[in-house]
């Protein structure tokens, strides 16, 4: 199958990305069907966000609205938020608690697992009207997602072709999720950012190990992370997922040589100092000296550890040139007061006002604004060569190439 109008992927393969994939409405429409509703697992919620049977929240897979519930059986269930009758939203609130799910339009009522319980005036009135005798409740439930958990992370898929969640994530990336989420997650707060760019431009940014210390002054100036620091990138088979990591205590070339290598690069602000730099130092909690780890799961989930700042990010497509970036900042129930205070102070590093991540809200938009006139051109991803395998090095675009390696077969490109 190919998308019309057909897209010819450049011969250089994953080292080139045709700019049209970031702006073409038809390609975007195909992505919603083939990727977000296709054989991928989408992050839905943290299990702890639905503590009690009857708790529910609403979210999206791609642009498709979804309800996630804690059922009376104690398990997490998910279904498309679209009444089986005439397609109305069933749940209107972002979160709530209910005994059942009742559509406001005609009061069709579903149980917490999405099975249709009752239809208002199903038998009509005084023998007139009502549903035909052939109408069966069991044939008209909400469309259900398969749901599975990886630790406290709940994922769902609408595709019967998705592999089991554990196989989808794999051991290499899975162990990097476990090392960060080592306690019982406690939500410190949430926010969301509206980005005026295609969702893939943000996801490329997340997987771009090359940019971080060139764009973000805080990383470079305060030696929180540099390309000269010990570190690397793990890339899952088929390129799907990635985890980049830094151990900033070890600079491979030494501090002076690192400064020389960064000389003239704008992100090194030699005269910039903070009055209170204390919040930049880390309390060791992971037992492996890793000071930053940015992890992504195809197609749109991010787990971030920057020092002691931990956050989940969900990248929701809202149109060819609009994306909602949702943030869930985490601590753990086990945190002592010093750790709790540090996580809140370090939250200054990330999010829409983040000292480090503020620029990431803008660069995707700078890329999007440069797209007009580029329909027959492609970006260049040759840093580190042409492949997409794990490396003990971050001066590479291997994990971005891995994203396209996973993307292209699903899209037929």
């Amino acid at each position, binding site marked *: 199958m190919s998308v019309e109008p057909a897209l010819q992927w450049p011969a250089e393969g994953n080292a080139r990305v045709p700019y049209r994939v970031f702006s073409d409405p038809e390609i975007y429409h195909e992505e919603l069907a083939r990727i977000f509703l296709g054989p991928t697992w989408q992050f839905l919620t943290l299990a702890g966000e639905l503590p009690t049977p009857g708790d529910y929240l609403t979210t999206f897979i791609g642009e498709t609205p979804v309800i996630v519930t804690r059922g009376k059986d104690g398990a997490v269930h998910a279904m498309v938020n679209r009444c089986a009758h005439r397609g109305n939203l069933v749940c209107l609130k972002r979160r709530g608690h209910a005994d059942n799910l009742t559509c406001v339009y005609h009061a069709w009522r579903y149980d917490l697992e999405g099975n249709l319980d009752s239809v208002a005036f199903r038998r009509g009135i005084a023998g007139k009207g009502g549903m035909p005798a052939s109408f069966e409740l069991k044939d008209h439930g909400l469309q259900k997602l398969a749901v599975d958990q990886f630790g406290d992370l709940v994922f769902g898929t609408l595709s019967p072709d998705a592999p089991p969640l554990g196989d989808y994530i794999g051991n290499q990336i899975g162990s990097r999720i476990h090392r960060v989420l080592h306690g019982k997650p406690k939500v410190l*707060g*949430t*926010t*969301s950012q509206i980005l005026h760019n295609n969702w893939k431009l943000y996801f490329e940014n997340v997987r771009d190990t090359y940019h971080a210390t060139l*764009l973000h*002054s*805080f990383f470079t100036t305060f030696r929180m992370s540099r390309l000269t620091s010990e570190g690397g990138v793990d890339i899952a088979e088929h390129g799907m997922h990635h985890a980049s990591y830094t151990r900033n205590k070890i600079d491979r070339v030494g501090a002076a040589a690192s400064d020389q290598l960064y000389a003239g690069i704008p992100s090194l602000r030699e005269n910039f100092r903070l009055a209170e730099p204390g919040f930049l130092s880390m309390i060791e909690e992971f037992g492996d000296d890793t000071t930053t780890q940015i992890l992504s799961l195809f197609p749109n989930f991010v787990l971030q550890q920057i020092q002691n700042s931990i956050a989940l990010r969900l990248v929701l497509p809202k149109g060819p040139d609009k994306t909602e970036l949702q943030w869930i900042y985490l601590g753990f129930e086990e945190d002592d007061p010093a750790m709790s205070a540090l996580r809140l102070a370090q*939250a*200054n590093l990330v999010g829409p006002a983040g000292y480090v991540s503020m620029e990431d809200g*803008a660069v995707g938009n700078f890329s999007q604004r440069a797209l007009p006139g580029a329909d027959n051109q492609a970006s260049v991803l040759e840093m580190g060569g042409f492949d997409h395998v794990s490396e003990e090095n971050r001066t590479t675009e291997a994990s971005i190439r891995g994203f396209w390696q996973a993307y292209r077969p699903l899209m037929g490109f």
Partner: protein
Amino acid sequence: MDIETVVQRLQLERLYADYAHCLDADQLEHWPDFFTEDCFYRVTSAENFEAGLPLGLIYATSRSMLKDRVSALREANIYEPQRYRHLVSSLRVVGEDPGGLDAEANVLVVRTMQDGEMTIFATGRYVDRVVPDGANWKFARKEVVLDSRQIDTLLAIPI
């Protein structure tokens, strides 16, 4: 209302007007001066605030941290030229004790980018603790509680 209350009210009105002017006129270096040394400042959403969640998008537990925010905006962070226009209204004193006042006010911020694009960037309220400082008043605590959970693109200049 006795004369002391009227005077106090006018002083508070001036505090909020000066605060908004400072941010809108790009006098960010003076912004920390509106706060006490050991102040608390955060920007959060009504959703977080009502759920009792402690996160701040901007989060400071001292005036020095506010100064760092300003120097980062001036020297380190990258964002497009933009200006704010604060409209602050409905100032209310909701509590009073010998140490100071609890005050709240509505705030609306229109953001104008360099190409002229204008957005209603933020609406919400200030939930503040105001304490006397000589003849003036300062914020010992300022929580900017935004009605929306969404931030358009990025939040650079404080609110």
